[in-house]
């Protein structure tokens, strides 16, 4: 009967409320951990003063320590995050991509020799120096570490001598040092990976061999070249493939960022496959890719890419430091005073010595030499971080003293991050290291940079001497003739001056549009071209509502009309507003001049229209507005406003009826081009003004 089939005598009803934790456990815990670490990050910035003095990395580790202590006391196991696969495959790539993508390219290439010198020779020097010193210490019986042989010491040394990008960048971002120093430290910590990988593999390979033969050393050197050059090669290859792919993505703008991430990650994974330097691969990929990709993708995608790269890097970094703190408490430690203290000592000493010696050798080859203060900054800024820790964790278990190594690594990391990280800023300010103001984003500066480059190239040609200007020139020519043709969709060679100019103008335009509705004082700089708006000639300090309304009307009619004309359908997979807008760059080339009548003003404006269709030849129209009078408002110092001066040039510009022009233009040339290669703001001005 029915009752026999079910041994439970009770009949069960439909459960209204159930819970199935194991099913979601893993993603759930990941999310919670991420949120916890991010909350910690929010929390730091509540009290601003902390972050000025203590770098975020220290704070995160501290919070991690606390959480680790809590977990330990309730005998919970932390998630296995800092063990090899998860760390190296998931947590490290975003950070390195972040560093590589935002690396300032010009200073990097100008100092590339120095960077590689420090990265390669510095790491070698440190590893061998520390390894041998520790080995000699091990010989002393009293310390009780005699069982560690030379190879194991060298292996350990190679782990802890690598300067870590995560830690260093976290600290150096806040401390503004001169450009040369910054780029050398930055580059060094990214590119020493090749050496670390080789040394690590080599020493762990020979760790249990009793004798190391010269053949092994030779093979090690050969392997270094394979690892280093292979990493760079793969990176550059994937970079070019990514750039080439984005040439064709104009119809699928929504997934453009995906290509960037997938190709970089692919470069990383393929390098890991062949056990070559994956960090170098991803950095080179980002470097190569960035320049071409940013020209191909839309403005939105570009912003998205930058934003997501930053976000992923930030999350990874947060999690890494956090878990460093947690795992510190929860691992088993083996403590040996002598070994650990001597490790600390030797790490300092050898780094300092290394920087000193290497700088002495390379200074004659540099034009801007590093003085002692710079050298101090470099040596002191050599922080160790999570990479060392992960490498220590992945040591093969055949090494007898693995726990000691792990403990020593943690101690070094904590020491450098806390002590050096906190004290580096005051020290650098105290000894007054040379600083550079890194963000000079004005047109004048850009113009003069170009001017200097060309001048230098010319003088070099005159002197008949080669230097890096010559090579740069050659590369730029090659770039323009070959690479750009292949990799960029709209190959229009564009000067960086023009690019910067457009960027600044776009910013100005955005700010105007933003403030029109809010800030009254910015409003009068936009004026219609066709309308003569007569506002009272009395001197006014404020605007009346009517004036404002007039201006709004004019503004909306002139600008938005043009936008609306070109809105296409949005489809299901298109982002909203991601149609084919014509970007309007408004040039507030305005000048105010008091007219003859007291209190009324004339405003002259230019409007420049950059059309995006490649078939259009007209690209810009200069247009002064006449007879527009507005009461001058009390000018507030808003960033968007450029002060208004009369310039001599205004009289020369012919007047053109822009709106009519654009109407004619759009109908005669056809508006929606299905395969038009539009790019939002990166459109150069082309051709000459039409029918003026």
């Amino acid at each position, binding site marked *: 009967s029915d009752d026999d089939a079910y041994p439970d005598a009770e009949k069960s009803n439909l459960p209204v409320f159930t819970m199935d934790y194991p099913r979601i456990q893993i993603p759930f815990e990941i999310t919670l951990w991420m949120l916890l670490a991010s909350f910690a990050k929010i929390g730091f910035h509540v009290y601003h003063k902390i972050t000025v003095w203590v770098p975020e990395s220290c704070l995160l580790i501290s919070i991690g320590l606390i959480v680790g202590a809590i977990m330990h006391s309730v005998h919970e196991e932390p998630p296995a995050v800092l063990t090899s696969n998860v760390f190296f495959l998931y947590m490290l790539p975003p950070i390195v991509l972040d560093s590589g993508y935002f690396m300032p390219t010009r200073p990097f290439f100008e100092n590339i020799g120095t960077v590689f010198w420090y990265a390669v020779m510095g790491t070698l020097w440190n590893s061998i120096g520390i390894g041998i010193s520790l080995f000699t210490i091990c010989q002393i019986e009293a310390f009780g570490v005699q069982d560690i042989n030379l190879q194991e010491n060298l292996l350990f040394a190679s782990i802890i001598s690598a300067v870590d990008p995560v830690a260093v960048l976290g600290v150096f971002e806040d401390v503004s040092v001169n450009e040369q120093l910054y780029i050398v430290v930055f580059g060094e910590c990214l590119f020493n990976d090749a050496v670390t990988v080789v040394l690590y593999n080599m020493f762990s390979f020979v760790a249990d061999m009793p004798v190391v033969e010269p053949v092994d050393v030779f093979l090690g050197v050969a392997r270094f070249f394979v690892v280093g050059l292979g990493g760079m090669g793969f990176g550059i290859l994937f970079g070019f493939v990514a750039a080439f792919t984005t040439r064709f993505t104009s119809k699928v703008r929504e997934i453009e960022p995906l290509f960037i991430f997938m190709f970089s990650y692919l470069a990383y994974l393929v390098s890991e496959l062949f056990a070559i330097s994956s960090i170098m691969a991803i950095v080179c990929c980002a470097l190569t890719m960035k320049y071409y990709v940013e020209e191909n993708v839309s403005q939105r995608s570009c912003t998205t890419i930058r934003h997501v790269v930053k976000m992923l890097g930030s999350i990874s970094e947060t999690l890494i430091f956090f878990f460093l703190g947690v795992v510190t408490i929860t691992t088993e430690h083996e403590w040996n005073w002598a070994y650990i203290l001597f490790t600390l000592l030797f790490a300092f000493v050898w780094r300092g010595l290394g920087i000193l010696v290497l700088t002495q050798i390379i200074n004659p080859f540099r034009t801007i030499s590093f003085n002692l203060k710079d050298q101090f900054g470099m040596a002191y800024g050599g922080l160790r971080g999570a990479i060392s820790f992960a490498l220590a964790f992945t040591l093969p278990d055949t090494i007898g003293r693995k726990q000691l190594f792990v403990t020593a690594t943690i101690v070094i990391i904590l020491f450098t991050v806390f002590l050096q990280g906190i004290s580096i800023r005051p020290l650098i300010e105290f000894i007054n290291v040379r600083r550079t103001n890194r963000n000079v984003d*004005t047109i004048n500066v850009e113009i003069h940079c170009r001017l*200097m480059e060309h001048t*230098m190239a010319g003088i070099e040609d005159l002197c008949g*001497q080669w230097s890096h200007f010559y090579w740069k020139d050659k590369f730029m020519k090659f770039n323009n003739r070959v690479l750009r043709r292949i990799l960029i969709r709209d190959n229009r060679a564009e000067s960086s001056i023009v690019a910067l100019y457009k960027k600044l103008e776009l910013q100005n335009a955005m700010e105007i549009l933003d403030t029109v509705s809010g800030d009254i004082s910015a409003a009068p700089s936009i004026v219609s071209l066709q309308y003569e708006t007569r506002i009272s000639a009395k001197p006014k300090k404020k605007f009346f509502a009517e004036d404002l309304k007039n201006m709004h009307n004019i503004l909306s009619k002139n600008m938005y009309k043009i936008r609306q004309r070109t809105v296409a359908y949005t489809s299901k997979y298109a982002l909203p507003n991601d149609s084919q807008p014509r970007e309007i760059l408004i040039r507030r080339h305005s000048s105010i001049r008091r007219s003859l009548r007291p209190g009324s003003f004339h405003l002259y404006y230019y409007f*420049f229209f950059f059309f995006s269709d490649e078939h259009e030849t007209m690209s810009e129209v200069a247009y002064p507005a006449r007879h527009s009078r507005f009461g001058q408002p009390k000018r507030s110092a808003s960033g968007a406003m450029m002060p208004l001066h*009369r310039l001599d040039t205004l009289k020369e510009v012919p007047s053109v009826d822009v709106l009519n022009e654009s109407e004619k233009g759009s109908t005669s040339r056809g508006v929606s081009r299905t395969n038009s290669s539009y790019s939002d703001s990166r459109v150069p001005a082309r051709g000459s003004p039409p029918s003026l």
Partner: protein
Amino acid sequence: MGASHPRSEQHQYHELMAKTGFSLEQIKNLHIRFQHLSGNEETIRRKHLSSIPALANNPIKKEIIEAFFDKRNQHENETGSFEEIGFEQFLMVMSHFRPPTLRTKDEEREALRKEKLHFLFNMHDTDSDGIITLEEYRKVVEELLSKSGNIGQEAARAIADAAMLEVASTNAPDMGPDDFYEGITFEHFEQMLQNLELESRMHIRFLDVKTTTMHCGKATM
């Protein structure tokens, strides 16, 4: 340079060393280059420099050549331009591009920087009136942009105008609307570029080795 006393040449070189700061080796090498450029004559004219093939693609070729003949770059408080220059003037112009060494003190660095700024300023200020007017600035920008793609003249002008406006707004913010911004004076010019690191951008490593013989394949004049 036919028969010349080695002794007086040495003496001359030492004078030049003191005046320009080059080393003896560098002066000798530059002298060889000078003679190469001048076709073994004593002086160089504009036509000698114009015919260097490598310079043909340089957008500001004219300004560079002009700089050599500009009297202001000789630091002797004269204005105007030469028709032809001798080796000493050639060296003086080249000395603007010496990199600072470790031993350069801060005041010397400042002086060097000012020299470089003056050099740039003189490149703009072709009529030697001490001000860079809008016309002059426009000209330079147009030339700079002339080789990079299809930048129309209007765009170049617009950029030059924007640049002038930038300078005016930062350096003379209190100008009334009626005032006319004459042009960029040297002080304004200095201030405009105050954040720019010139050292790493405006120097040439004058080698101590003879390079004219090391140019495998490079077409020299």
